C-alpha cells in the first residue's frame, strides 16, 4: 500500500531524513519509534505533503501512485490521514461543521454523493461514541481551547469519520491519561481491517500494549536503523536507543 524508498528530505536547508525505506501493506500496523528530533514528524508531514518540507531524493508511493505528484488534499482524497502531533486550532469554525466539510470534500473527490446534514449527524454521533468524544466538543470551534488530550481524541474522531486507507498517528498517545489511551486504542483497533493500514509514531511501549503492531521501526537521525516485530519495542524500553544502536550493528 505505502512504499517509501530511500527518502531524503530537508527543511530550511537542514537535512532531516537521510534515506528512509518503509513498506506498509494493507491490514498492517507499523510502529515508528525514535528519540526526539530524529525525524518522525518530518516523515509524517512529508507523507501528508507539507510544502516547506523538500524531498531531495527517493520516492513515495500510495497504492502505486506517486505521492509527490499529489497535492495534500489529493492525498487525503486517496485515503491518507495524518493525526497531527500538534493539532491546529481554527477559531470560529465549528468542529462538526469542519468534519462535514472534510468528509464531503473527500466524498465529492471520489465521485460519491455528499452526505446531508441528517445523515452526517448520525454518522458523527456513532463515531463520537466509538472514541468517547463528548457532544459538547463537537459544537465547539475546531480544537480551540481543547485540552491536550481532547485535541488528540478529536484527531481520532476525525479519523473514525473519514475512514482512511492509511492513517499515520503522530504521537497521538502523548498527553493522554490512561483511560483516554485505552479508548483511543480501542478506536484504532475497531478500525483495523484487512484493507486499512496504520503507522503509529510513539515514544511509549505502553501504547503498543493496546495497539499491537505487526512491525516496529526505529528511526534515528533520519534513518530507520532497525526493524522488527512487536518485541523490538520491549527491547527498546529496556535498553533505550543508545543501547539498541550499539548492539545492532549486524542487523
Amino acid at each position: 500500500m505505502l512504499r517509501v524508498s530511500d527518502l531524503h528530505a530537508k527543511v530550511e536547508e537542514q537535512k532531516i531524513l537521510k534515506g528512509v525505506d518503509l513498506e506498509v501493506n494493507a491490514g498492517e500496523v507499523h510502529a515508528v519509534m525514535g528519540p526526539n528530533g530524529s525525524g518522525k514528524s518530518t516523515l509524517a508531514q512529508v507523507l501528508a505533503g507539507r510544502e516547506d518540507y523538500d524531498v531531495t531524493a527517493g520516492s513515495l508511493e500510495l497504492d502505486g501512485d506517486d505521492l509527490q505528484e499529489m497535492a495534500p488534499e489529493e492525498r487525503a482524497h486517496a485515503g491518507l490521514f495524518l493525526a497531527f502531533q500538534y493539532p491546529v486550532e481554527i477559531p470560529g469554525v465549528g468542529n462538526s461543521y469542519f468534519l462535514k466539510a472534510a468528509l464531503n470534500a473527500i466524498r465529492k473527490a471520489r465521485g460519491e454523493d455528499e452526505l446531508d446534514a441528517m445523515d452526517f449527524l448520525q454518522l458523527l454521533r456513532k463515531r463520537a461514541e466509538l472514541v468517547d468524544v463528548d457532544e459538547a466538543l463537537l459544537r465547539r470551534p475546531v480544537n480551540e481551547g481543547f485540552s491536550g488530550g481532547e485535541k488528540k481524541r478529536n484527531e481520532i474522531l476525525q479519523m473514525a469519520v473519514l475512514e482512511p486507507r492509511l492513517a499515520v498517528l503522530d504521537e497521538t498517545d502523548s498527553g493522554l491519561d490512561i483511560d483516554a489511551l485505552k479508548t483511543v486504542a480501542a478506536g484504532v483497533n475497531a478500525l483495523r481491517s484487512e484493507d486499512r493500514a496504520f503507522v503509529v509514531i510513539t515514544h511509549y511501549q505502553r501504547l503498543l500494549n493496546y495497539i499491537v503492531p505487526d512491525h516496529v521501526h526505529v528511526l534515528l537521525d533520519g534513518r530507520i536503523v532497525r526493524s522488527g516485530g512487536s518485541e523490538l519495542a520491549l527491547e527498546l524500553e529496556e535498553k533505550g536507543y543508545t543501547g539498541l544502536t550499539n548492539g545492532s550493528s549486524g542487523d
Partner: protein
Amino acid sequence: MPTAADTIGALAERDYEYGFVTDVEQDTAPPGLSEEIIAFISAKKNEPQWLLDWRLQAYRGWLKMVEPTWANVRYEPIDYQSICYYAAPKSDDDRPKSLDEIDPEILATYEKLGIPLREQEMLAGVAVDAVFDSVSVATTFREKLAELGVIFCSFSEAVQDHPELVRKYLGTVVPRRDNFFAALNSAVFSDGSFVYIPKGVRCPMELSTYFRINAMNTGQFERTLIIAEEGSYVSYLEGCTAPMRDENQLHAAVVELIAHEDAQIKYSTVQNWYPGDKEGVGGIYNFVTKRGLCEGRRSKISWTQVETGSAVTWKYPSCILRGDDSVGEFYSVAVSNNRQQADTGTKMIHVGKRTSSTIISKGISAGEGQNTYRGSVRILRSAEDARNFSQCDSMLIGDRCGAHTFPYIDVANPSAQMEHEASTSKIGEDQIFYCNQRGIDTEDAVSMIVNGFCKEVFRELPMEFAVEAQKLLEVSLEGSVG
C-alpha cells in the same frame, strides 16, 4: 460613448462576477457642479423651495470645505467638475404600477445580481425598494406596511408625500456641513430610502434596498433617513454591487437614523462594489457618512456591515447615545484585497447616563490590501456609568498587505468602564495545511478560516444576508492564497 458591449469587451469581465453594464438611456445632467445644477436636480424632483434652499446652503458650505486627508487611504484627486450629478432612467415620468411594467433589461440586471424581485415579493417577505441609478423603480409590499402605518418609500417620494417628516428630521443627525462628503451629498443627493415606523410598531419584515451604480461617470449620492418612534422596531438591510468600469466612481452617501424612547433600529449592510482590477484601476470610491441618534431612553441602534468592495472605503457608522440607558453597537467585517484600501470604524459618543456600546471589528487584508480600523469612543461628562467594549481583530493573508488600528478613547467621566481588546493574526499555513490534510482544498480552507474569524459579526446579520455575506467573502478572497 461606448456601448455596453464595448465596455464589457474591454474589461476582464470574468474577474468580477457582477461586472456587467446595462444599457438604459439616461436623462443626465451635464457634468459639473454649480447652483444651476443643484436647481436643476431640485426641479427635476419637483422639490419644495425649502429643500432647494437647504441644498444650496449645503453647497455654499461645501465650497469652503477641503477634502479630508487624515484617512489612511491614497487615491487620485477627484475632479468634482467632471462628475454628473443627476441621472434617471427615462421611464421616470411614467412610474410603473407593478413589476410587469418595469424595463425588462432592469429586471434582467437584478436577475444577474441574484435579486429575483418577484420571488422575494412572494417568498422572502422582504419589501424591496430597489434603487436603479438615482431613482427608485420598484417598491413592493408597501400596502402591507401601510396597514401598520409604516412608511417605506424612496426619499423623493417622501419629500412629496411626507414633507413634514422629512423637514423635521433631515440633517438633524448629520448636519449638512458635518464633513466634506456629507456637505456634497446634502447639496446633490439624488435619492435613497425613507423609513418611518410609528409608535409601538414592530416592523414585521426586513426592509431592504439594493443599490446599484450604473450610469457612466455619475456619482451616486444616496440619502437615507430612518425614524423609529417610541417603542418601535425595524431591521433594515442595505446591499449593493456595481458593474465593472474603467473610471473611478465616487459614492458619497449619507444615512441618518433616529431612535426614540425604547425604539430599536438594526441596520445591516453588505457592500460589494467593484473594487478595481488587480492593479486597483477602476474601483469605486466609497465615502459614506452614517450616523444614528439614540434620542430616547433605552433606545438601541445597531450597525452591522460587511464591506468587501470598493477601491477606497471611508466609512464610520456612528452612534450618539443621548438617551439614558441607550445602547449602540457596531459589528464590522472589512476586506481589502489586491490594491483595495479601507479606512473604516465607528464613533460611539456617550452622552446619557448608563449608556453602553459594543464594537466588534474584523479586518481582513489580502494581496496588497490595506485595512485600517479607526474607532473613537467618547464618554462625555454627563455620561455617568457608561460602558464600552471594543474588540478589533485583524487577519492578514499573505505578507504584502497591512492592518492598522487607531482606537481613540476620550473619557470625561471617571465612572466609565472601558474594555479594549485587539489582535492581529496571520492566516496560518498550518491551518491551511490542516484543512488540506482533511481533504479540503486551499480556497475552501481560506474561506472557512475567514468565515470562522468573522463569525461574531455574521451572526448579527439576518439569515439570508449572512449567507450572501459569506459568498461575497469567498468571491472577494478568491485567489488570495497560493
